[in-house]
């Protein structure tokens, strides 16, 4: 099954004054969208893709980005869970 993949990666300045990783996803219809990741999500993505450098992320599935975002955003939920 075709799916969206990571097409490009750049480091950008987030408005809150830290560096963020901006992933460009290329969708199956040729369209592109961007997703910004904080350092925890970036780290999770680099690990899950076994990437040594940001460029190594290109070609990986968008689902890896989703999982990485979840790893960052939900990091407090495990602590809050009963």
């Amino acid at each position: 099954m075709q799916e969206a993949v990571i097409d490009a990666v750049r480091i950008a300045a987030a408005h809150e004054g830290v560096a963020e990783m901006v992933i460009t996803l290329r969708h199956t219809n040729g369209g592109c969208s961007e997703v910004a990741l904080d350092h925890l999500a970036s780290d999770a993505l680099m690990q899950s893709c076994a990437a040594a450098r940001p460029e190594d992320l290109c070609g990986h599935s968008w689902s890896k980005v989703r999982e990485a975002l979840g790893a960052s955003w939900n990091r407090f939920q495990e602590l809050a869970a009963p």
Partner: protein
Amino acid sequence: MYDLVIKNGSVVDGTGLPAFRADVAVKAGRIAKIGRIEDAAHRTIDASGKMVAPGFIDPHTHFDAQLLWDGAAKPALAHGITTIVPGNCSLSLAPLKEKHRMKLVGMFNQIEEMPYKAFAEGVEWNWQTFDEYLARIQQGLAINVAPLVGHSLLRLWVMEEASMQRTATPAELQQMQDLLRQCLRAGAIGLSTSFVDMDETLQPVPSRYADMDELRALASVLGEFGRILQVVPEFYDADLNIARVDQLAELSLAYGIPTTFSPLFVNADNAAAVARVMARVDAQFARGARVWPQVQTRPIDISFSFAVPSLLFIRLPSWYRIMRLGSHDEIVAAFSDLARRPALLAEAEPMQGLWSQLILRQVNTPANQPLVGKTLAEIAEMRGTTALEAMIELSLEEDLDAHFLATDMGHNDDPAVSALLAHPRVHIGASDGGAHILSFSTYGDTGYLLGHFVRETRAMGLEAAVKKITADTAAIWGIQERGQLQPGYVADIAVFDAATIDRGPEYYVQDVPGDGSRYVRDVVGMHSVIVGGEIAWSQQAGYAAAACGQILPGPAA
């Protein structure tokens, strides 16, 4: 006899028309006359060589908490800002039930970096309703406040924990509408909401659980009063941003309200995307909608320390591995290992241009305090080493708590930013004044506009720039009788030297309750700031004791 006469200045009246030589007389808090004034006055300001302009209006701030212990919203007033709009991004401090106070403090901590301790020691929680909060901040108010009410607060009040779980029922919608009417009657200038913000557990703030039916219901109430809707869209994605522009246009046309969204950033990477967003804004204005993008003037800086793995190092595998892997002691050990040092330096060498320009912004040891504010290139020269080695050594000397600043890393394309700021359908704002206090200074955007974009790069004329931050802002937000120097208008006035007006360097100051600190910038080139006809700040005497700030509601219902 006049109360105050400002003599011999060049009047930039906020209309955008050319500056002209005239005196400005003030009586009973209002501008009485503009022209040649020979009558006596209780006080006189000699504005020879200075510009005399309406007080600036900052439409995007988060001074909600600071106003509880600082009625001047320092240093905003000193920068010439005579009116602030707090309560942006779905977050205000009222209406708020007692049981939800800590939840809100958590949101302010996450989003605005306002420390918990500041609330604990600086805030006497003696309000719940919006009018009680306004009565609280009116005490000792030295700056005008046009407060928004936050959508997340309305949801929290009506729906409580369910506000962070689901959409509202029809009955809850009705209650929110009634509550919003109460807040608008009490003095709220409009409603703020957010599609992106998260709370302290990184879960969406209550406003993000609302659907369009809820926004329509609340916008209909805004329409009853002719008040504004402020929104934080998905500003990082052009397609989503455009979709929000369309939604705001729908609300603006359906209910006859102005809307504004912020922020909108532009740099070399996203210029095409921003052009698409602006094309949509233009198209919606052409249909008669009012959807004002807010653009900040200052570039975005990045700060970091070795203690937290900054993504600036992600292109350096060895560096990033050290910073993300280890405990504090492991990081210290890795960078202290001189045998590893050559390989680390070689890996980072291609980014030498960045390292040299980094500014040392914060240290703890007295020995290194004199180096604060210097670039790593300067420090390296002083120490007889390289910028990279200086960065490592300083980090080790400070037990990894040396903070470095990379300036102008985003929103940094001057021609593109200039073009946006000058665009007739761009609203200058998005300063975030009072927020991000532990990361950077959000003060001085007006000085940067007049210093960098007017004087240094000549991207805008002075009169046009002043109009943008005075009369235009007042018109967009429905702020009456302010934003221009006209007889009969309230005497909110900024007297400044156009040859020197600017923002000063950023520095760290400990003036937040609970022994808290924040980054600030002083003003350069401001002579006097008058609020309601009284001198509220002067270069000579600093902040005045008089508290002449007012709560400014929007248009009458």
